[in-house]
């Protein structure tokens, strides 16, 4: 039902989320793990090995949409975090979603942004809980969540000017 | 001249008694709390921890008094003294025994209320003068609480006055002579609701002196240390002593009005020991209650007064009036 609303690249995502929910095996899922940063798309993972069922990589502009879709499916935002891929020159923002209404189902949504210009739209409008997680990620990585209501120092002292979890961080 | 000597000797006596009590009520409280909580309480400072109050007192006396920067210096310093003065004055009319009373005032009952209500102001001033938000809030709370409970207390006292026709505390006790069913608390012939009004009075006296579970003024989990937040050392000590003093007054007043003061339950050998026995029992009850219940909320407390205690005491007043006229 949501498919029609989605933007073209997202349409695929939507369908697949629903498909996966229904337990169907997605034919387009890629098996192999890449050396290079992987392409956007959907990946069904082995739960027993990885701890989540579905692995989605999206563009930064699709993050909010994906959150909305997952929200309408009744899923919970568990955490938002970043990974600094120094050698790729990218940040990866990882969103963990899980379904708490019944049989557990975990979805990981990732998105990569450029290290130089780490802008990603906020999903705190969709999930209130993302507010703090994003704020923390901003603080520790310097990833800028566009539209976030309160990007202020959170865990660290107000006057500090470093992003400690960046790989090139040195005090 | 004799009178002056009498005044002096009574004062010295009361002062010694008071000093001892203020110190050792703290010990009783801590020890009692300890045993209620499966532990021992003060023990290693002197035998049974009996020197603990002395150590505490000396410590407090040798502790620096810091006046906060933006406090109102004068009021800040005078508030604890005021609280203490009000407490000490109250002892002038407590009849410990038939003849062991510093001074029998004809208006002793109302005088106690008057002075105690003036003491409420000292808390407010202390809280305000500290220049601290917590103190201010807590002071306001404490005062509005003691104010709220003053009314049912007064109404209940009026009931007693109505029965006995006097405000002289010793007279009130005398009117309860004989076996224990003559005590006001059991005086069902004077008003069927008497035991309830005893409860009302007791609860009110507990709330009036800001004791747990009504200790909103010192609600630690909300307002740090309440209106005494900024008071260190002896300022704190004075407030504490005043609290214990008020506790004694509250217990004594309940004893006098309802439990027959120095009367023996069986009409034999009345004397101060009975008074002390009853008073300490009530004090112990207060301590016991403190260590049993969680704290009420402010609204629960104010509503307890306005929704339950005041209506009850009013009804009691009317019932008593009826009983007196009818029977």
């Amino acid at each position, binding site marked *: 039902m949501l498919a029609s609303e989605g933007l073209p690249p997202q349409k695929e995502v939507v369908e697949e989320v629903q498909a996966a929910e229904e337990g169907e095996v997605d034919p387009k899922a890629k098996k192999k793990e890449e050396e290079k940063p992987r392409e956007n798309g959907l990946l069904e993972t082995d739960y027993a090995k990885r701890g989540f069922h579905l692995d989605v990589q999206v563009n930064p502009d699709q993050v909010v949409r994906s959150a909305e879709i997952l929200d309408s499916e009744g899923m919970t935002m568990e955490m938002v975090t970043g990974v600094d891929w120094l050698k790729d020159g990218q940040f990866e923002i990882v969103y963990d979603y899980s379904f708490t209404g019944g049989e557990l189902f975990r979805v990981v949504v990732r998105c990569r942004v450029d290290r130089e210009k780490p802008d990603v739209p906020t999903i705190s409008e969709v999930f209130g809980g993302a507010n703090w997680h994003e704020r923390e990620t901003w603080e520790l990585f310097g990833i800028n969540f566009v539209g976030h209501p309160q990007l202020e120092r959170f865990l660290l002292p107000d006057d500090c000017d470093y992003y400690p979890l960046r790989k090139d961080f040195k005090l | 001249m004799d009178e*002056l000597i009498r*005044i002096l000797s009574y*004062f010295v006596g*009361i*002062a010694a008694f008071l000093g001892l009590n203020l110190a050792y009520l703290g010990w009783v409280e801590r020890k009692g709390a300890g045993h209620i909580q499966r532990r021992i309480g003060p023990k290693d400072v002197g035998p049974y921890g009996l020197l603990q109050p002395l150590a505490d007192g000396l410590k407090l*006396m040798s*502790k*620096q*008094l*810091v006046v*906060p*920067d*933006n406090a109102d210096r004068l009021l800040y310093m005078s508030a*604890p*003294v005021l*609280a203490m003065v*009000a407490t*000490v*004055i109250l002892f*002038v009319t407590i009849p410990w025994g038939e003849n062991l009373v510093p*001074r029998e005032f004809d208006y002793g009952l*109302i005088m106690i209320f008057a002075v105690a209500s003036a003491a409420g102001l000292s808390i407010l001033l202390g809280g305000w003068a*500290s*220049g*601290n*938000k*917590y103190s*201010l*809030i807590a002071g*306001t709370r404490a*005062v*509005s609480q003691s*104010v*709220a409970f*003053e*009314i049912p207390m007064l*109404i209940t006292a*009026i*009931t007693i*006055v*109505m029965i006995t026709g*006097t*405000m002289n505390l010793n007279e009130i006790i005398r009117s309860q002579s004989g076996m224990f069913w003559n005590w006001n608390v059991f005086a069902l012939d004077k008003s069927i609701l008497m035991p309830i009004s005893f409860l009302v009075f007791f609860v009110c006296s507990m709330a009036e002196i800001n004791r747990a579970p009504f200790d909103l003024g010192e609600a630690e989990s909300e307002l*740090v240390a309440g209106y005494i937040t900024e008071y260190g*050392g*002896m300022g704190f*000590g*004075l407030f504490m002593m005043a609290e214990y003093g008020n506790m004694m007054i509250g217990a004594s007043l309940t004893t006098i009005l309802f439990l027959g003061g120095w009367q023996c339950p069986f009409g034999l050998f009345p004397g101060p020991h009975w008074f002390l026995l009853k008073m300490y029992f009530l004090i112990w009850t207060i301590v016991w209650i403190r260590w049993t219940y969680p704290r009420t909320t402010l*609204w629960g407390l*104010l509503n307890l007064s*306005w*929704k339950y205690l*005041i*209506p009850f005491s*009013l009804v009691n*007043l*009317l019932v008593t*009036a009826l009983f*007196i*006229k009818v029977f």
Partner: protein
Amino acid sequence: MEQQAITDLLYIAAFTLGGLGFGFGPLLIVYFFAPRRNRNIINKTGIPIECGMYTIGPAWIRYGIVYYLYALMFLAFDVDVLFLFPVAMAYNDVQGLRPFIEIVLFVGILSLAVVYAWKKGVFKWEPKVYQG
């Protein structure tokens, strides 16, 4: 003034003095016995206690409308109740049912205040709605 009243007064005065002694005595001792200086690190001994933070805004805040309402009710009630004291003292001395009726009337009118406040929701402490 009669002798008795004077004696009463003397007692009260003596105990007031004594109370002052009780109050100021310890403070005097503190003056002599307490340390004179405070060791401090950043010279913040005097700032108001606010859980280790600096206070935000003025310390003397505007506060307590609810208490104020209760205080108002108390004020009027208190005065009312105090009138009952002399009446209660004289209650036994006046024959007949008249005092009873007087008291019933008085208390009845008095309770109207409580009833009014109750009805008006002064005693209600419900969560408020603030839109953020």
